[in-house]
């Protein structure tokens, strides 16, 4: 290759590389721009009230947080996610059979959250329940615990 054609070739390759890099970086920047840096969504950890607010027996459904809070006389507090693991519909808890039923595609979860029927790929999540310093119960959705987890107050 002589000097002249080498120069031509390097201009071509260099130019093309620069163009691809510029387009790539721009596309990346656009994608990053579309991905929010801050989510103005409800916090993942929150207080839900005093232990005395929750009755024994059927679970209390927290509407905003989509969580069932169970209170058992012997074992204590536990919190199950009400979001179906299949496609995110809100499951219902039936007192009649103590199971969770998803209205969208018919998934049924046992009392411990495990899948009994339907297309759900995994069991319902159980979240850690702790007691804050002011005595209120606190749930952290980032901390998934086994279904046997209980908080005794």
């Amino acid at each position, binding site marked *: 290759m002589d000097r002249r054609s080498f120069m031509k070739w390097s201009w071509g390759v260099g130019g093309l590389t620069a163009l691809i890099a510029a387009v790539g970086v721009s596309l990346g920047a656009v*994608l990053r721009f*579309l*991905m*929010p840096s801050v*989510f*103005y*969504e409800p916090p993942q950890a929150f207080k839900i009230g005093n232990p005395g607010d929750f009755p024994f027996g059927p679970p209390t*459904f927290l*509407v*905003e947080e*989509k969580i069932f809070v169970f209170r058992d006389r012997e074992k204590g507090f536990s919190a199950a996610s*009400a979001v179906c693991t*299949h*496609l*995110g*519909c*809100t*499951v*219902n808890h*039936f007192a009649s059979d103590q199971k969770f*039923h*998803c*209205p*969208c*595609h*018919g998934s049924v979860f046992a009392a411990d959250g495990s899948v009994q029927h*339907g*297309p759900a*790929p995994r069991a319902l999540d159980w979240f850690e329940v702790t007691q804050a310093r002011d005595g209120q119960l606190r749930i952290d959705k980032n901390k998934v615990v086994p279904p046997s987890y209980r908080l005794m107050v």
Partner: protein
Amino acid sequence: MNLLQEIYQSIVRRDPLSTDKGKSELVFLNVWLHIHPAKVKREHMKFTHTFYLGFITLFLFLILITTGVALMCYYRPYPAAAYQDMKDLQFVVFMGPFLRAMHRWSAHGMVVCVFLHMCRVFYTGSYKKPRQFNWVVGVVLLLLTLGLSFTGYLLPWDQLAYWAITVGTNIGGYAPLVGGQLRELLLGGHTVGEAALLRFYVLHVAVLPSAVILLTMVHLWRVRKDGGLSRPLSKLKPEPQQKLVTIGAVPEIVQLKTQPALSSKTYGLMEVVTGKPIFETISPEEEDDAVFSYPFAFVREALALMATVTGIMTISLFFHAPLEELANPAKTPNPAKAPWYFLGLQELVSHSALLGGVVAPAVMVLALLVIPYIDRNPSRQLKARKWALGLFAAFVAVNLILIVVGTFFRGPGWAMVPPWVHVVGGTE
């Protein structure tokens, strides 16, 4: 008077329509009409050849743009206002329910017509060479139509909208590797909320319509450049017989036939180049069957337009678009159903989210896209395409059955409930 005449002639520069030259100039000197050929073959205008499905789809899209822009004047895309604006449109705004109904029925109609149009093109074998690429453009337009319907579905912010989109976007979340991020990108968050509503609105009123307009232009352009509409099967010329060639033999030299120019016609010549055209050409003899687009084709198009608009208006008078209660993230309606054209997908998803929600639709779309390239059979005759026709019929049948099952046979908890059984109360 002279000035008026001058103004008119500066706008309309063609010869009078009583002349053939005027009829041609009407088409190719006009930016709106020049997508038509100056002359069309009679066989192409026959209703049963195309059922005018492409035109009807285009007209429905025009209705959607018109009514959509009108609806935009009363709609604010954030949760606190959206549902209230829908209620306003429903009960306060003059003709609000009628415009909403027109928008909704045109959207449904467009999904139906795009699909039927695709079936027509398939059964007449019109995706075959040289029209392969236009089929691909058509499939992308089908997907964009579904995307427009899906994004529009969320905007009323009622229970129906909220849960259909929750289910729909969660299906996307199952896509391997990028699923979760894709969903976050689409929703602008982790759940369907304020950010998702705004993003769906932007997609619905700006991004997707622009894409549809641009691709429709390409689609129509390619119809012309690929040689116009494909010929009806009954008019197809017999396929050329394969000739046996002796290797090493001197190739036969085909003498080009020359045709004397007709003195009664004007010929415009753009450029003289050598080589064969890539598109279908018509011979001078075939031109005898052609008539001027004005008025023959235009009258038929105008009739199709009027029939489409009248049809949509009539339906909208009697059937209004539904509006359920305000979106409630805590309470999923039972059963929660996607829009009907996605109910086949939901039916698949009820069996397996990954297989039914991601793999099956991806395979279906890919198969549609590559049809013109894997179908190597050059014949367009029905008799010679038994396999292709059978497979496509199966594809249509499976989709229809899934949609019918999802729509009419699924009750509370997605349990199999035939439509003639009435579930009282349901299980909450």
